[in-house]
């Protein structure tokens, strides 16, 4: 046998490790969870960021977008000559309504122009299948892959598009991906709905014909030179293009796909920063407890080794090797786990974000760092025990430790004693005798519960956020956007469409908002007074009326502009006569998604110096007649886009289930492992320390159940005590996560439902029960006779 080749001390090491294999594994798994979580989140973060950078670089993702109403192609030269512009390109981009066979609801989409001969230089596309449209075939288009896949569209298939009011039959010749639509989401939505948002590319000439843009463009895309000031360029572009109906140029930070990607990367960063340390902390604690108590039980052996002439260092090394072995197993588990999770996550992302390539790959320093962290954890967790081994005098160690002295019990405890039975007294005195140990176990269990709450609460919060957003703030079923602002009478026409129960007009006006140095490019939404579908709510989520005068900002926008109610805000309208004036901030309202500015529709139009015009209407519809309404809307030329609340909600729930659900599932698993690790370890060590005591009780005629009560009752008590603490830790973790997930796109409310607390408590209790049962099996098999032969 191999073992016989080893030195006796190393044989002891292997046998000791084998003897505590369950505990060693529990610790290793906790270390592994931390390492795995770190490798997964950090690796994914790096993979995602690198992939994005490479994709943007290779396909020349634009730095700036400058939409206009209509500008002559010749203007390109002037744009190119602006300082900081490395290269510019013009194109046509317009909203379309798409109709695919088999899809009842109208699909909102975008259509972009393809240059006549070459591919686009800026925002180039990746042809996955098929071919580019033939310049002489007007009806040929390329389709975005996510959308095509969702509808099972392949090159050669047809679909219909309403281009500028005219329905056209289009033929797909190729399926593409684009850096502009990594996250293909319709403006104003919160999650991508592949079925409900389509993007097409068409020959420029054909598209210009359809939108009366011959010799003209409606969007310039720009690559800037390195080190340039984006804000200055945006200003210059707005100046140059203002005559052509510029609604305001914007950079990548306001490009919706990139915004979402950035958001995701930020979330990964937060998770990577927050969760692995929790696991490693728990691992430190476990190592500390287990190794500390192991060394206590091996006092005599240590003394003996030293008495035989083994040096302090050799003996310490023996225990260091044991700790090292456990840590090493943890690291290996972690690396395997991290790679496995990372690849799973990459697959999920590949489905969520459309990259032409996305490989999970963590650079070597991620592995090295996680190994380093684990070793530090091991060192910190066990240093005190190892020092104790070094310091132990052989003479002292050889004398058995005196029986633990329980005489200094607490007075309150002794007052209680007459009312409780002896086994319960044993539990309480034992807890009181080793309060630090009890506290550590309690904290360990609480941490696992906190982790559970911290990860599952996001589900509550998201559902709450969507519920408030869709059922309290924006209560419409359907939003119809017109191609051009229309007269208020358009509302009447819409009201006559089948199934429409109520219609509420709104106007969206592109603006630049300025407060001192702070500038935001936004759209002011004009609402009718007393609006009942598109509502405003205060911070208590109570509906508030829209003030007649002044502008109302969403809380996040006010924060970004650093402005408070009552202060004046510079508003530069970027449409019509482009007036600029100061408007008082009349109020701040609560929103969870995006940034919003609202005004009374009439004061907004007065500001524009226009008659009342509207951009679209919110509709309340009869659910039984939606199909008829959809057919009607698909055939209405003035409609540029339709968004459907219910579909958006469903898409949201689906995405939530897929992404967050997986995340919560894994965290539940991890937290359960931690709980098992802590409870099982505590129980096992207690058992090894008190096995003799428990066996004596069995000899005295106590049943297995009664004896188990003494050991497991203590753990049950600690688990119960850990529950409120865990709830508190969970709330704190949720709070931290909420703070760090506060972005322009989302604000996750700090909502932890009682069912989440209940769920977390249940998982922890189940984990505790499972480890209790494992230990119970050992109690049942206690060797009564062996215990009586030996001295304490």
């Amino acid at each position, binding site marked *: 046998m191999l073992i016989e080749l080893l030195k006796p001390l190393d044989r002891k090491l292997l046998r000791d490790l084998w003897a505590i294999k369950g505990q060693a594994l529990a610790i290793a798994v906790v270390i592994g969870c931390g390492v795995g979580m770190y490798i997964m989140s950090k690796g994914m973060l790096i993979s995602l960021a690198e992939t994005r950078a490479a994709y943007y670089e290779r396909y020349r993702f634009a730095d700036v977008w400058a939409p206009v109403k209509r500008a002559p192609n010749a203007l390109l030269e002037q744009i190119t000559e602006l300082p900081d512009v490395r290269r510019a390109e013009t194109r046509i981009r317009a909203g379309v309504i798409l109709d695919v066979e088999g899809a009842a609801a109208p699909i909102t989409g975008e259509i972009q122009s393809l240059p006549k001969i070459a591919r686009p230089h800026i925002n180039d596309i990746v042809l996955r299948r098929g071919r580019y449209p033939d310049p002489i075939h007007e009806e040929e288009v390329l389709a975005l892959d996510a959308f095509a896949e969702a509808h099972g569209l392949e090159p050669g298939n047809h679909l219909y598009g309403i281009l500028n009011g005219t329905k056209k039959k289009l033929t797909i010749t190729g399926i593409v991906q684009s850096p502009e639509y990594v996250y293909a989401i319709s403006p104003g939505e919160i999650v991508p709905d592949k079925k409900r948002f389509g993007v097409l590319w068409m020959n420029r000439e054909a598209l210009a014909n359809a939108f009366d843009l011959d010799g003209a463009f409606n969007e310039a895309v720009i690559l800037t030179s390195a080190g340039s000031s984006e804000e200055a360029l945006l200003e210059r572009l707005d100046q140059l293009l203002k005559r052509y109906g510029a609604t305001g140029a914007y950079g990548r930070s306001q490009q919706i796909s990139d915004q979402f990607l950035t958001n995701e990367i930020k979330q990964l960063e937060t998770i990577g920063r927050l969760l692995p340390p929790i696991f490693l902390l728990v691992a430190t604690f476990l190592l500390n407890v287990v190794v500390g108590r192991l060394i206590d039980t091996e006092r005599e052996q240590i003394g003996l080794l030293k008495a035989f002439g083994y040096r302090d260092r050799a003996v310490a090394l023996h225990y260091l090797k044991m700790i090292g072995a456990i840590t090493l197993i943890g690291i290996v588990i972690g690396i395997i786990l991290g790679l496995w999770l990372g690849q799973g996550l990459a697959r999920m992302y590949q489905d969520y974000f459309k990259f032409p390539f996305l490989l999970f790959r963590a650079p070597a320093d991620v592995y090295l760092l996680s190994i380093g962290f684990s070793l530090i954890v091991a060192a910190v967790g066990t240093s005190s025990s190892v020092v104790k081994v070094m310091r132990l005098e052989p003479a002292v160690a050889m004398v058995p430790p*005196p*029986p*633990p*002295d*329980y*005489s200094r019990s607490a007075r309150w405890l002794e007052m209680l004693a007459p009312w409780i*039975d*002896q*086994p319960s*007294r*044993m539990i309480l*005195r*034992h807890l009181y*005798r080793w309060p630090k140990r009890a506290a550590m176990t309690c904290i360990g269990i609480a941490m696992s519960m906190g982790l559970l709450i911290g990860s599952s609460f996001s589900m509550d919060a998201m559902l709450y956020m969507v519920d408030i957003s869709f059922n309290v703030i924006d209560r419409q079923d359907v939003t119809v956007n017109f191609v051009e602002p229309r007269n208020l009478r358009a509302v009447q026409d819409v009201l006559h469409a089948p199934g429409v129960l109520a219609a509420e007009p709104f106007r969206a006006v592109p603006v630049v908002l300025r407060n001192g140095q702070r500038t935001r490019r936004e759209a002011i939404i004009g609402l009718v007074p007393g609006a009942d579908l598109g509502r405003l709510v205060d911070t208590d989520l109570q509906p508030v009326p829209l003030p007649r005068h002044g502008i109302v900002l969403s809380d996040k926008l006010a924060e970004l502009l650093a402005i408070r109610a009552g202060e004046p805000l510079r508003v530069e309208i970027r449409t019509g006569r482009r007036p600029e004036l100061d408007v008082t901030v009349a109020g701040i309202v609560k929103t969870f998604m995006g940034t919003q500015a609202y005004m009374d529709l009439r004061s907004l139009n007065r500001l524009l110096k226009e008659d009342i015009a509207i951009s679209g209407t919110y509709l309340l519809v009869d659910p039984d007649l939606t199909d008829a309404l959809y057919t009607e809307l698909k055939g209405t030329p003035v409609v540029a886009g339709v968004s459907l609340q219910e579909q958006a909600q469903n898409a949201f729930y689906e995405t939530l289930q897929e992404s967050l659900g997986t995340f919560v599932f894994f965290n539940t698993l991890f937290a359960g492992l931690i709980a098992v690790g802590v409870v099982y370890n505590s129980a096992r060590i207690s058992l090894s320390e008190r096995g*003799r*005591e428990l066996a*004596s*009780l*069995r*000899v*005295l*005629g*106590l*049943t*297995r159940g*009664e004896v188990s009560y003494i050991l497991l009752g203590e753990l049950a008590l600690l688990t119960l005590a850990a529950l409120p603490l865990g709830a508190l830790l969970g709330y704190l973790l949720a709070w931290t996560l909420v703070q760090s997930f506060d972005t322009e796109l989302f604000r996750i409310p700090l909502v932890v439902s009682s069912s989440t607390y209940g769920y977390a408590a249940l998982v922890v209790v189940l984990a505790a029960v499972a480890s209790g049962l494992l230990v119970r099996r050992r109690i049942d098999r206690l060797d*009564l*006779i062996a215990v*009586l*032969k*030996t*001295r*304490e």
Partner: protein
Amino acid sequence: MEKNEHPAFRAEGLTKLYGSGESRVYALRGVDLEVPRGEMVVLLGPSGSGKSTLLNILGGLDSPTEGRVYFDSWELTAFDDEHLTRFRREYVGFVFQFYNLIPSLTARENVALVTEIAEEPMTPERALELVGLGKRMDHFPAQLSGGEQQRVAIARAIAKQPRVLFCDEPTGALDSKTGIVVLEAIARVNHELGTTAMVITHNAAIAAMADRVLHMADGQIQQTELNSHPCDPHELSW
């Protein structure tokens, strides 16, 4: 159990085999035994002769490889673990060389641990008085001397008023003076409560206080000695 003619214990052909193959050890090889009620029995024999093994089997802690054990009219060897636990709980008291007290319970509570689950126990106070520890009832084991701890263990064993008291080297860890105090406690229980007592010892001098002395060697009872005039423990010396 009513009064009847059954002896306290009867064993037939007890064999205990440890291990298998080359490392087989016979701890007992065919022990037949009968212990009348109320007797004080001392078990003598060299180390490894199977004394503890026999005692553990009679006390329901262990089971023989072959043979039967009867306690009163019951066959112990047919009991499952649950019944053996009940048996120990109601009828048997154990005292061991290393006391095995619960360190987190006081002397009184260590005794109460047993009286709480027994059917007709005496009070813990009475049991402690019987062993001469009436004054130290609220001390924890860490605050008691070895002899005192052993007497608590005896009080704990007798408090349930067991039918039999098994003591495995109860004086092994004690000096002779303290040992005699402990033996006196055992003898008192045997006389006053009529408890059958079985005491293992390496100390042949102790045999003088027994009604019956069993000499064990090599897993067998070599010789049984009856003593019609057992002496009082305080007359002993070693």
